[in-house]
């Protein structure tokens, strides 16, 4: 995460000089911080204590469930100062963009659903108690009174609590379609109408309790479903909020830190080494190298000097650059990629969720069965009241109470399990799609590799060359230099004594070794011929240049993951925008036989589309902007948390940790949960097969309906919980 690395506004005293103090505003500022490491009551009180002692803070409140703290403080207090305070207390903290988070804070829909659930639960329990009296043999006036009281409780409750079903059913009927909510609505309404009619005529059976219990159980399923999605959504939004987008704008030479949203075309923006380009632009001043790996998958940094065009998302490596913005916000190449995604988004659209396909079979069946039993009984007895009663009983008994719980109960349990393993399931049907996967496509840079290089030919160099190279490399923060220094230090090399060390941004580092000029850097700069591999060159005056080659460092768990997937019989493909030797080398290292190099973003998506056309179910794992279209085209997609926002948005599952290890387990869990879902459907069907003949025979009493409904719902939920 970049948030912690951002230069702090308050900690830089130079910036404050000359800038007029902002006028004191009475209104407090609200700061949100993410605290990924807190886990106990001790942490809560330590964090709150540390923050409350910070000058200017009025109130700090930790939310352990979301692992966040929200702070009310004076406007002068900055998030960076608070992050520093917490670091002093031993807690890792990152600033969250309050605007992005605000949307999730008050989960209005969730609350409304919980409210309906509570009202339905309250009413169904009261009516159930009244019904117990009727079932145990209340007669005549007493029974009628109990029925009337039940009606008084049930009618307003149904009108309030069952609204979500009515609305869904109505919107389905408007487009002449059937969904699960149509039989539900019909059952509830028919049950209420016949019960009211029976009550008015002092009948024996009233189904008020059944209608309410049905609403209660179905709402419970909906609430579970909503919670799973809300948790995933808030975690995904938190990832987005972690990247507080700020840039340094040069206003007549003065550096001003502004939000990226405020940048305009023509602004001059300073990008420090290590910073990411906030907008598309042209370099006006400075030379450096830029890392385009997130956009294209290339690992070799490219030179950038005056008049070089740069795109948003590229990382500046060595020297400070001043760029003039040519496109901002929605117009940047980063955002234009979204169009590609919209075109490619077919994998998801093709998929019919299990619940929907069940509903398609189920809804017409229920209606036909109920209508047939009504017609049959009417022809047999010519008694409208009896036949309506039986039709209502059939609808209530067959009503997809257990079916409504079958999918959400399992997805909630499975997503909870995977969340604890560091995986965020963003899409409700992602698990079902994941279970079918037989082909796994990996991106290279940033996915299988960490995007940080590793020296590969340390042994090929003389000790003296290494000593000189180490001394030069330690003067730079360029990723290749850092990797070289790390490898040399590990081999216990001591740096040579150099003088006049200077870094030439965009080219390399040079110095003097006892009056001989030494250089470490680009091939053209030191007078060497550039090779195919990622490499840097050392030139000692009078000698031939020496070449240091690098390979990408593997991500944790990459080897194990690939091996486990191949062993599991999956087809594993490597697709990268990087050069052929780099991709081939990695494929050999990991034992991947199929690989594609130098693939453009469109190529990747097209290849995945070709695979799916052949009938393969593709899981795409990628992190870069060049993967976004491919992520959207695949049947199911995953991206690491370090991926660009666009890639994370396009994928169904986000890997929260640094390792790829949970992938094979996720596939197993997905298969298990799909099996549980179909088991649940089978359980619900078995209940129906037993109960429906009883209902059609006219033997179903309200007691039998209540028992069947509760038993099937509880069995289904318990079966889902076995997944934990």
């Amino acid at each position, binding site marked *: 995460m970049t948030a912690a690395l951002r230069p702090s506004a308050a900690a830089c005293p130079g910036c404050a000089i000359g800038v007029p103090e902002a006028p004191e505003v009475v209104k407090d500022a609200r700061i949100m911080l993410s605290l990924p490491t807190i886990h106990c009551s001790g942490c809560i009180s330590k964090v709150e204590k540390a923050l409350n002692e910070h000058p200017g803070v009025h109130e700090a409140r930790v939310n352990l469930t979301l692992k966040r703290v929200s702070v009310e403080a004076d406007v002068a207090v900055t998030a960076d100062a608070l992050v520093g305070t917490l670091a002093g207390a031993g807690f890792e903290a990152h600033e969250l963009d309050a605007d992005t988070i605000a949307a999730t804070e008050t989960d209005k829909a969730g609350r409304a659903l*919980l409210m309906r659930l*509570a009202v339905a639960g309250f009413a169904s329990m009261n009516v159930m108690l009244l019904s117990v009296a009727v079932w145990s043999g209340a007669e005549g006036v007493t029974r009628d009174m109990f029925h009337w009281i039940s009606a008084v409780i049930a009618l307003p409750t149904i009108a309030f609590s069952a609204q979500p079903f009515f609305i869904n059913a109505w919107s389905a009927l408007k487009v002449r379609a059937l969904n699960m909510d149509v039989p539900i609505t019909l059952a509830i309404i028919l049950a209420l109408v016949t019960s009211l009619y029976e009550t008015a005529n002092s009948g024996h059976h009233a189904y008020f309790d059944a209608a309410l219990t049905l609403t209660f159980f179905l709402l419970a399923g909906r609430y579970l479903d909503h919670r799973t999605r809300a948790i995933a959504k808030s975690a995904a939004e938190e990832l987005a909020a972690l990247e507080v987008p700020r840039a340094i704008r040069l206003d007549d030479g003065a550096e001003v830190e502004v939000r990226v949203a405020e940048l305009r075309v023509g602004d001059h923006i300073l990008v420090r080494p290590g910073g990411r380009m906030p907008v598309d632009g042209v370099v006006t001043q400075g030379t450096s190298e830029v890392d385009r790996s997130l956009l294209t998958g290339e690992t070799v940094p490219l030179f950038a000097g005056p008049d070089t065009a740069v795109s948003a998302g590229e990382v500046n490596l060595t020297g400070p650059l001043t760029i003039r913005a040519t496109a901002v916000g929605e117009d940047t190449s980063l955002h234009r990629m979204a169009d590609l995604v919209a075109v490619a988004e077919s994998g998801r659209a093709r998929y019919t969720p299990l619940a929907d396909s069940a509903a398609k079979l189920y809804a017409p069946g229920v209606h036909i069965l109920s209508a047939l039993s009504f017609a049959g009984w009417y022809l047999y007895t010519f008694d409208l009241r009896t036949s309506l009663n039986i039709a209502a009983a059939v609808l209530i008994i067959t009503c997809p109470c257990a079916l409504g719980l079958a999918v959400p109960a399992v997805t909630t349990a499975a997503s909870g399990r995977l969340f604890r393993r560091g995986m965020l399931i963003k899409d409700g049907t992602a698990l079902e799609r994941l279970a079918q996967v037989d082909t796994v496509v990996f991106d290279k840079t940033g996915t299988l590799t960490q995007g940080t290089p590793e020296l590969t030919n340390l042994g090929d160099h003389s000790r003296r060359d290494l000593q000189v190279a180490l001394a030069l490399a330690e003067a730079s923060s360029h990723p290749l230099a850092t990797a070289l220094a790390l490898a040399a230090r590990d081999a216990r090399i001591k740096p040579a004594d150099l003088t006049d060390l200077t870094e030439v941004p965009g080219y390399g580092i040079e110095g003097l070794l006892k009056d001989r000029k030494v250089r470490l850097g680009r091939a053209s700069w030191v007078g060497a011929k550039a090779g195919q591999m990622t490499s840097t060159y050392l030139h000692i005056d009078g000698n031939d240049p020496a070449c240091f080659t690098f390979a990408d460092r593997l991500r944790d768990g990459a080897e194990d993951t690939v091996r486990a997937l191949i062993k599991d019989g999956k087809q594993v493909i490597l697709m990268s925008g990087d050069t052929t030797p780099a991709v081939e080398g990695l494929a050999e290292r990991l034992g991947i036989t199929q690989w594609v190099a130098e693939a453009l973003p469109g190529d990747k998506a097209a290849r995945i589309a070709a695979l799916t056309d052949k009938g393969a179910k593709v899981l795409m794992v990628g992190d870069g902007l060049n993967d976004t279209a491919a992520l959207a085209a695949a049947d199911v997609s995953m991206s690491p948390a370090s991926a660009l926002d666009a890639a994370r948005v396009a994928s169904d599952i986000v890997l929260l940790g640094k390792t790829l290890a949970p992938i094979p387990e996720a596939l197993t869990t997905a298969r298990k949960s799909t099996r549980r879902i179909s088991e649940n459907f089978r359980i619900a069907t078995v209940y129906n097969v037993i109960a429906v003949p009883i209902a059609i025979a006219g033997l179903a009493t309200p007691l039998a309906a209540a028992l069947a409904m509760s038993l099937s719902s509880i069995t289904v939920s318990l079966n889902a919980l076995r997944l934990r």
Partner: protein
Amino acid sequence: MDVLIYLIPASLFLGCIGLLAFVYTMRSNQYDDPDGNSQRILSDEWDDQPKP
């Protein structure tokens, strides 16, 4: 069975109190942080004097 005339309204009234209590707890954000609340009760920080 005339006692039912008092008992049923009484029981419904009591049930309504429970429902209203639930509505109150929901309105005052008491379900926002279930993990935190289960941990906070174990903290002895404010045992001797109430939180100012």
